[in-house]
């Protein structure tokens, strides 16, 4: 009865466009009221969710991404990518994809990656004769690596909700991110033929060296951050703080970071962090309430029964989350559904780190699927192409991403090899 009231009210509120955080909080209030528990626990839980040091990695990684997209670093990364792959068929498409993956190693979110790289690539691609829809689709899809290649906001949230090591999750995200990048480069090679764009000459290894030197400081940053985390020097939160400092120093060194840009970067980071954390707070109350009512255990044993085994279970999880990802913000989805889907995954003996990667890749795909794909919105704003016409071009990318997701799901060593070597 209480279960039905909690989930029923939650779904109805979502449909009526109540903000996700409020829907979580309000349905928890209903559940608490029915269970005769003081509502003070809501205020208490919302407070205590924030009061956590590991979660602080989120605002600082968001801030680092904002600073680095204003500090001219994205342009340098694109320059280096261009010297490597610019001469291939569909060169600028490949540059956008590779540049996004480089930027993904600086930033923890898809949205920041699309905004940073899309902002740089839009005009050159238009001048070379790429259709605006194709440009929009490519930069949106390339942004998917943002939350897979570490650092990743989604993986931090997953780590905090489940208690799994965030360092292990980051390490496990690296190869899947590269796999996604390479698969999209291959797809772009075939799709770009139909764009009929002119080829550019290979600039030579001297140009690779020159652009590498120009992009050296941004490229060094992920090396410092990741080796710091795995070498046991930093916690992920400390690494995020160091990333902000690094971005500031490099931005000032390049003389590309103005005070106004810095103010905007801080303000945007405040808003993005608040949006993620407000959901996290409310989800904290919701998860606590359903756990004391034994709901995840119930759902979990029910799912275990219909799935029968880990292979079918993972397939069900993937199909379910792909649908959820189309409708719901990825950060919200990961905090809400992890607490429900995780126990059954554990009872099937699925590796918890692998499960985190599967969920993160899956929900990242949700950022490029209509109707609610945040990458699509940003790509549309940059290129002035409507979402509808991006969608007509982006579907091959989405199919390839789903193919990657299945590879990552059923070949655990793609994610886990690095963890076994270094972890």
């Amino acid at each position, binding site marked *: 009865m209480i279960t039905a009231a909690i989930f029923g009210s939650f779904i109805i*509120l*979502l*449909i*009526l*466009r*109540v*903000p*996700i*955080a*409020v829907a979580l*909080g*309000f349905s928890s*209030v209903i559940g608490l009221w029915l269970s005769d528990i*003081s*509502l*003070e626990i*809501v*205020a*208490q839980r*919302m*407070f205590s969710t*924030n*009061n*956590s*040091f590991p*979660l*602080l990695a989120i*605002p*600082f990684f968001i*801030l680092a991404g904002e600073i680095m997209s204003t500090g001219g670093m994205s342009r340098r990364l694109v320059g280096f990518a261009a010297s490597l792959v610019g001469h291939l068929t569909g060169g600028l498409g490949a540059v956008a994809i590779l540049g996004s993956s480089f930027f993904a190693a600086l930033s923890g979110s898809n949205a920041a990656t699309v905004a940073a790289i899309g902002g740089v690539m839009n005009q050159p691609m238009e001048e070379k004769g790429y259709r605006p829809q194709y440009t929009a689709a490519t930069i949106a899809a390339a942004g998917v690596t943002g939350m897979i290649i570490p650092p990743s906001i989604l993986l931090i949230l997953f780590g905090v909700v489940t208690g799994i090591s965030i360092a292990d999750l980051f390490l496990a995200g690296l190869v899947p991110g590269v796999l996604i990048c390479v698969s999209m480069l291959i797809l772009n090679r075939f799709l770009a033929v139909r764009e009929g764009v002119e080829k550019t000459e290979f600039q030579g290894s001297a140009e690779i060296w020159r652009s590498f030197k120009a992009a050296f400081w941004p490229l060094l940053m992920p090396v410092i951050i990741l080796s710091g985390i795995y070498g046991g020097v*930093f916690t992920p*939160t*400390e690494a995020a*703080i*160091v990333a*902000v*400092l690094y971005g500031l120093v490099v931005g000032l060194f390049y003389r590309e970071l103005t005070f106004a840009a810095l*103010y905007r970067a*801080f*303000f945007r*980071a*405040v*808003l993005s*962090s*608040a*949006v993620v*954390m*407000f*959901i996290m*707070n409310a989800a904290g109350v919701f998860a606590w309430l359903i756990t004391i009512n034994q709901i995840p255990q119930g759902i979990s044993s029910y799912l275990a029964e219909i799935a029968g085994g880990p292979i079918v279970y993972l397939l069900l999880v993937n199909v379910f989350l792909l649908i959820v990802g189309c*409708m*719901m*913000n990825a*950060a*919200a989805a990961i905090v809400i559904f992890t607490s429900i889907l995780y126990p059954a995954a554990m009872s099937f003996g699925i590796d918890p780190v692998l499960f985190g990667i599967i969920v993160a890749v899956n929900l990242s795909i949700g950022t490029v699927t209509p*109707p*609610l794909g*945040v990458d699509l*919105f940003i790509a549309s704003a940059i290129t002035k192409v409507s979402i509808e016409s991006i969608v007509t071009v982006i579907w091959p990318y989405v199919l390839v991403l789903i193919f990657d997701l299945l590879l990552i799901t059923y070949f655990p060593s793609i994610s886990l090899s690095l963890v076994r070597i270094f972890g």
Partner: protein
Amino acid sequence: MQAIRKLLDISEQTLAVVCILSFVAMFILGIATVVFRFIIQSSLAFPDELIRYLFVWLIFLGSAIAFRRNMHAAIGVLVSYLPATFKRASLIFATLISAFFFLVIMIYGIDLTLRVRPQISPALEVSMAWVYGAVPVGMAFLLVYAIELLVIQSRAPADELLTEGH
């Protein structure tokens, strides 16, 4: 109405400045903790605690700004297909629900804040009311902005009603 809107704009800008200053302070304290951990091999307890407390304030006040700017994640697709009258009714209902939620949490947040007054934080040795106070204060701003949104939603022409949100 103009004067009220002006006042609310000022309140939003003030919140923004407070949040940004807190964030800058969190960053400087964060650098300090990392440096101290390397130099004297032990972390100071007070910056760690202060960062978390500033973060709590930043989130609750930042949420209010994000609410006024319609940035909180919501699922607007289904409502956007409704005919104008139902769309407006649904959006107003959603805002009423939000306002009611903010009001309830504000009231319980005040109770909680008053109750934790005798509790002293371990490192900074200040009353925990200073930290818990972020909940009712943040909820109060959210409530005010929700009421403003209700007025806007009931008056705005049908084609200007926003349904999207990320």
